[in-house]
């Protein structure tokens, strides 16, 4: 029974998506997709327990052993991220049902649920896939669903934003495919468990070229700064639940792929200076971009780009503490960024505009909405009792323990970025969330083309979903100890992949 468990997070959403295509009543479709995600969540929690107690759970699909067939692998890192991401996907789905996104027309509602379930399928498959080509397919399933979601019922501006997003993602996918072809030509395999030793046998130049190509491919998908330009243009144009699920999941899948492939394929023992530089630039430039924005959703998208830098921080250090910090940060950020975008959806819904300089003249959105925005905002900025503080502390301790110049530079820019994040959040606070206080500080820049306000809704479901995300963020802070232990064990697995290899390839076959 437990043998088939790794297949369920992929299989159930895809079957659900198939069922949605039948002409069913509206309520049934909603119940179906929420039900599927709930069952998947339970399976993934079970998978996490199994992976933590018994080691990596491996499923050779169709009974074909590892180098030949499709292999699904759930180790601690995959299972942890699977559980968190499905939890967030479920909350966002509830929010979307409450808001009635794209549900004015029944056809659009069907497409929304279909694409949403396929998105979850792709995300789950990406976390579970045990070879490079399968990872590519997972990215494609996920991205194809996201192309549909971002251009669903789109007007002119959303269509052109979706066009940018689609073309950039497709280009990086084709580069990924070329990389897979070249790696296969050089090593004769695409199974992650086999690739590490075989890549190490290659000449240094070739190995380095593969590492760089992989970094740039995943860098586009993850929005590392020189390759981030598509994200703030496309994400904020979608309705708030769709932006929330994209922000929470898509870039994190890229980060997961970076963590998995770089540790498994290109293991190293020292600090990775190139990635450290990329992390520093991502953090600083991203947050400066956020400060310059007047549109609330654009501002949050830039903070998303900026905080990708924190996840690269730990990977750049390339030791147990650093990777633990990265894993904690990914978990924290999936939850908190989704909570922020959902709360922003509520704020924008109440104010009727996303432009900060106009919000100052709108009525007070109410204590509950303010609290739902303020708690994740403080968490994102790293204020002590919240989850962001714990994740940042882990990273800073890792930087201090490493002690090299790159580590100190990373730690310093991480601190500066937290401070600037707090400043950006304070701007939102003074503009949108105070009871008609006149905005002090600088004059907000004029906005000639403010996106039209999204459909407003004040359903209890939306509040409940946003509150659920905020409470989950608090829970991460409360159970930080066990979570950090789990993160450390997952980081150890990443740095010592022998267990992973023997689980995938069978004993004595590595």
């Amino acid at each position: 029974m437990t043998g088939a468990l790794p297949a369920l997070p992929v299989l159930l959403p895809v079957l659900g998506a198939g069922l949605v295509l039948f002409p069913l009543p509206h309520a049934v479709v909603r119940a179906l997709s929420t039900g599927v995600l709930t069952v998947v969540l339970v399976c993934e929690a079970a998978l996490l327990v199994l992976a933590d107690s018994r080691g990596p759970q491996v499923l050779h699909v169709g009974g074909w052993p590892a180098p030949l067939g499709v292999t699904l692998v759930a180790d601690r890192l995959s299972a942890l991220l699977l559980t968190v991401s499905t939890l967030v996907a479920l909350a966002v789905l509830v929010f979307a049902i409450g808001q009635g996104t794209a549900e004015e027309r029944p056809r659009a509602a069907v497409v929304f649920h279909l694409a949403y379930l396929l998105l979850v399928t792709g995300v789950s498959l990406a976390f579970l896939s045990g070879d490079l080509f399968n990872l590519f397919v997972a990215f494609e399933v996920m991205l194809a669903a996201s192309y549909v979601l971002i251009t669903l019922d789109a007007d002119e501006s959303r269509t052109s934003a979706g066009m940018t997003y689609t073309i950039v993602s497709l280009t990086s996918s084709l580069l990924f495919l070329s990389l897979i072809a070249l790696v296969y030509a050089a090593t004769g395999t695409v199974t992650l468990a086999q690739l590490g030793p075989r890549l190490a046998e290659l000449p240094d130049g070739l190995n380095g070229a593969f590492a760089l190509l992989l970094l740039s491919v995943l860098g586009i998908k993850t929005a590392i700064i020189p390759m981030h330009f598509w994200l703030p243009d496309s994400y904020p144009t979608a309705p708030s639940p769709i932006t929330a699920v994209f922000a929470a999941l898509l870039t994190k899948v890229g980060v997961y792929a970076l963590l998995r492939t770089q540790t498994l394929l290109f293991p190293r023992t020292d600090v990775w200076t190139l990635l450290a530089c990329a992390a520093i630039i991502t953090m600083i430039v991203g947050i400066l971009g956020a400060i310059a924005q007047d549109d609330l959703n654009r501002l949050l998208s830039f903070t998303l780009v900026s905080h990708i830098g924190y996840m690269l921080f730990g990977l750049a250090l390339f030791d147990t503490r650093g990777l633990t910090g990265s894993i904690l940060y990914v978990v924290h950020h999936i939850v908190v960024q989704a909570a922020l975008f959902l709360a922003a959806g509520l704020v924008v819904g109440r104010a009727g505009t996303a432009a900060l300089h106009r919000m100052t003249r709108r009525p007070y959105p109410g204590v509950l909405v303010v609290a739902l925005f303020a708690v994740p905002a403080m968490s994102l900025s790293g204020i002590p009792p919240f989850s962001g503080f714990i994740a940042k502390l882990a990273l800073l301790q890792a930087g201090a323990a490493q002690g090299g110049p790159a580590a100190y530079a990373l730690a310093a820019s991480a601190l500066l970025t937290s401070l600037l994040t707090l400043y950006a959040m304070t701007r939102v606070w003074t503009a949108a969330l105070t009871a008609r206080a006149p905005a002090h500080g600088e004059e907000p820049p004029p906005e000639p083309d403010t996106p039209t306000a999204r459909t407003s809704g004040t359903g209890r479901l939306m509040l409940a979903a946003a509150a659920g995300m905020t409470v989950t963020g608090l829970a991460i802070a409360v159970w930080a100890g066990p979570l950090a232990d789990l993160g450390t064990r997952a980081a150890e697995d990443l740095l010592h992949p022998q267990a992973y290899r023997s689980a995938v390839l069978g004993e004595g076959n590595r």
Partner: protein
Amino acid sequence: MNSVDVTMALVVGGLFTAGFHLMLQRSLMRIVFGFILLGHGTNLLLLVVGGSPGRPPVLDGEETAPTADPLPQAMALTAIVITFGLTVFLVALAYRSWRLSGHDEVRDDVEDRRIGTARERARNEPGPEHDAHGTTNGGNR
């Protein structure tokens, strides 16, 4: 490993060059064509890496002659399906964009436009510097 067919290598290289060149153009239709060429180049590359052609990789017991490597063929098939599907989606999107906006040019970057209008009004609004060059029409930055 095996030696590579020079003709195939040149064709793959040519497809990549033409594809990226077209993707850097301003017109959406050219970008779509660029994507199509790039997709063909990639799929061909997948086939080329399978090594020299051989017997079809079907095992029927007694034959021992070397067969072609089936794995790149499987990967190329999957990749062809994916690129084909996404090409259709892209063409539909380009058509919709043309229907809605009446032209098929890639628009300027939002930040770029803001900085431009701000300059026109002779106002010294500090735009975010990193986005000043982040135009949306480059597919492969």
